[in-house]
């Protein structure tokens, strides 16, 4: 899935990289705004006696929440990085692998999940030459936005429509779809740049339809191991209706 340099036009690649940099700042601000809103909710729930003495410490609750969120970012980053190490060569310098963007979005929320994916892709590209530096923007778009944010909002909309039933079945389906969508956009970018063709499309899709099943299984497995209240992205959908 990591596009190397030269697969898409340089102008397109540079434009996408710039757009993704701006998007990353916006995602960081959105994640922070959401967190502070959550903190305000916790603070307002602090118990106060009739004499006005606060008997539960909202500060402590906030600190615990912040610590949990920070460590969640750390372990999701590590997990996605380690899991992406397993590559299936598709040919012509392109590989298929576990993405983890949808999992990151479900655990951390769409914005923080996007930032984690971006961090993983930046380290892979700059330090390990996995994916082109110039194509970084395209890779972030494919895996971070299409495979993460878009899949998350599709899941949120469908889950709400299903009245919060069939959670794991829906997660399985959307995790699979996220990989296929990301691969589809990846192929579309190369075709748009005049490099890809029907053979590349067939190769990518046939591999990623199978990889999607693995992605869905791993996503379900990780979420099954987690406690409900630690899935900030899922809680967010329940609280805000995914909006």
């Amino acid at each position, binding site marked *: 899935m990591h596009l190397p340099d030269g697969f898409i036009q340089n102008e397109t690649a540079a434009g996408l990289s710039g757009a993704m940099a701006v998007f990353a700042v916006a995602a*960081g601000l959105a*994640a*922070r705004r959401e*967190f*502070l809103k959550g*903190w305000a909710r916790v603070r307002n729930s602090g118990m106060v006696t009739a004499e006005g003495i606060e008997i539960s410490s909202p*500060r402590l609750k*906030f600190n615990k929440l*912040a610590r949990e*969120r*920070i*460590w*969640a*970012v*750390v*372990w*999701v*980053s*590590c*997990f996605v*990085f*380690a*899991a992406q*190490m*397993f*590559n*299936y*060569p598709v040919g012509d*310098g392109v590989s298929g692998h576990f993405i983890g963007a949808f999992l990151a979005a479900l655990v951390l929320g769409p914005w*923080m999940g996007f*930032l*984690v994916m971006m*961090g*993983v892709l930046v*380290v*892979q590209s700059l*330090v*390990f*030459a*996995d994916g082109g530096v110039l194509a970084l923007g395209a890779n972030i778009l494919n895996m971070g936005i299409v495979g993460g944010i878009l899949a998350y909002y599709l899941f949120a909309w469908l889950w709400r429509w299903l009245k919060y039933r069939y959670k794991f079945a829906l997660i399985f389906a959307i995790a699979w779809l996220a990989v296929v969508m990301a691969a589809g956009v990846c192929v579309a970018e190369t075709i748009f740049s005049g490099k890809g063709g029907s053979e590349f499309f067939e190769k990518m899709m046939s591999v990623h339809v199978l990889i999607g099943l693995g992605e869905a299984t791993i996503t379900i497995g990780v979420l099954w*191991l*987690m*406690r409900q209240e*630690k899935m900030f992205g899922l809680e967010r959908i329940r609280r805000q209706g995914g909006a």
Partner: protein
Amino acid sequence: MRKFNLLLAILIIGLAGAFFASAFPDGLEWSAEIVGVEVEEGAGLEIGIIPDYEFTSLSSELSGLMVVLIGLGMMVVFGLIMGLIVFRYKQN
């Protein structure tokens, strides 16, 4: 939460080990030489979980295990910095 963290740590170490073993069939033998343990030549080292796996970015002498560990270290630093930036709060 502790149980979950332990499971996760085992999973990450397992993934790193599996990557190491699959990417470098003689990786375990190399590790054994480093720590001074004798192993039977080639025993159990031919089976990788993805036999045709290839890590094209490995251009130096760094072993697969080192690459994974360095990467994980970077991700921990990245996660901490990003988490602290986004989730920091200055108490009034």
